């Protein structure tokens, strides 16, 4: 074997090693990190250049990040790594119950929802309903702590086939449908949902209001 063949074989091996090391590394790799794995006197800059040429125009390319090197998906194919999926799934019982309370009792605060439900509600539950576009923050109650008031959206009416909130069945209709038992204590009432902009005891949300503070704390706890 000639010295020339030896050299080119060595170069080919160096290139393979470089490729494997950059591929397997968890972070971009510096040339200094790579050098110990290569044969003595290897021209690392030339090798990097060769590797870059090898990958030029391919689905994966060799890119420089500062003084380090890494493989990345070619820019024009990065859309492959993003995907939109739409899925339909049933609303959880907690979400359904919370939604129904918001619908009937609006404007309603989180504490009031919990009072009706008898259990606390997680941040996620209201989040899901807001994300679904059925519940919105209306304003803040003029009371100590200024809790956020929630109400339903147009999207809610749309989804549930209601022309207005007034279409929500009242006490007698719920009884008639067998949804409420007929032996209810005297004074049991089903509220008439408030349909207007802001009620007297509500004030508008602050600009950029992100909701109850209590709420955000929950997220971190």
């Amino acid at each position: 074997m000639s010295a020339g063949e030896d050299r080119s074989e060595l170069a080919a091996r160096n290139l393979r090693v470089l490729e494997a090391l950059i591929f397997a590394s968890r972070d971009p790799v510096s040339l200094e990190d790579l050098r110990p794995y290569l044969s003595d006197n290897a021209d690392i800059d030339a090798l990097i250049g060769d590797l870059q040429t090898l990958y030029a125009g391919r689905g994966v390319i060799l890119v420089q990040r500062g003084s380090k090197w890494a493989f990345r998906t070619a820019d024009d194919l990065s859309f492959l790594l993003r995907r939109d999926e739409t899925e339909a799934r049933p609303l959880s019982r907690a979400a359904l119950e919370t939604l129904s309370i918001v619908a009937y009792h609006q404007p309603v605060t989180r504490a009031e929802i919990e009072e009706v439900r008898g259990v606390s509600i997680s941040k996620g539950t209201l989040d899901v309903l807001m994300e679904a576009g059925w519940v919105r923050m209306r304003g803040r109650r003029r009371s100590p702590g200024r809790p956020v008031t929630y109400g339903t959206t147009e999207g809610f009416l749309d989804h549930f086939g209601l022309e207005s909130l007034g279409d929500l069945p009242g006490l007698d209709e719920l009884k008639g449908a067998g949804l409420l038992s007929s032996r209810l204590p005297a004074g049991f009432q089903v509220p008439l949902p408030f349909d207007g902009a802001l009620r007297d005891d509500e004030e508008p949300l602050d600009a950029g209001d992100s909701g109850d503070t209590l709420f955000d704390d929950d997220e971190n706890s």
Partner: protein
Amino acid sequence: MYVDVGGYEGPLDLLLDLARRQKVDLSRISVLALAEQYLGFIEKVRRQRIDIAADYLVMAAWLAYLKSRLMVPQKADDEEPTGEEMAAMLQFRLARLDAMREASGRLMRRARLGLDVFSRGMPEPVTVTRHSLWEADLYQLLRAYAAQRERGIPAEYAPSQRTVWALQEAREILDRLIGQSFEWVALDSYLAQYLARPEERTTALASSFTASLELVRLGTVEMRQSEPFAPLLMRRRASESDS
């Protein structure tokens, strides 16, 4: 020969080790010699009064049987497996275990992921943006609302007949429960079946306690309590005529 039983993974492992000491191919080992070695080993260990797992003893019994089958000629009408069949089965099991052990070695010597061969160090995960379309209809919504409101209604109050134990009644019950027991028994355990009913608990306790005092006064029952709130123990008092 010293063998640490604890170092073996069961009788088959021990047999395999003994078989290897014959320094021949597993298919050519002397099963009879192997059985004798194993039995000798178990005997020795038992002499040293070392506890041996039942597995080893079961194998020893089987090998002793195998030995007898190998040494005594079998009758033609014998339906049990012959000594040779049993020996073949043992050889097969040893060879199979040996093969699996060898195979695991070969597996572990392969170029393994994360040790010799590597996957992409910086994977570029596909980010999936999920748009949820929630399913819920008006009926579900109304049912959820009604169910919650119903849950919130305090349970219906119906004045119920109060059960009260009359003192005389309590005394009769207690007298019957204690029967002829001369053992100390806690009042609570006598009344266990009544105390389980919340509506009866208080009256059962109060009335039977009062009745028990009456029984003590009459000298038919003895009571004792080691400290405040400790169980109240009672027993039938041995009468003079009985002793």
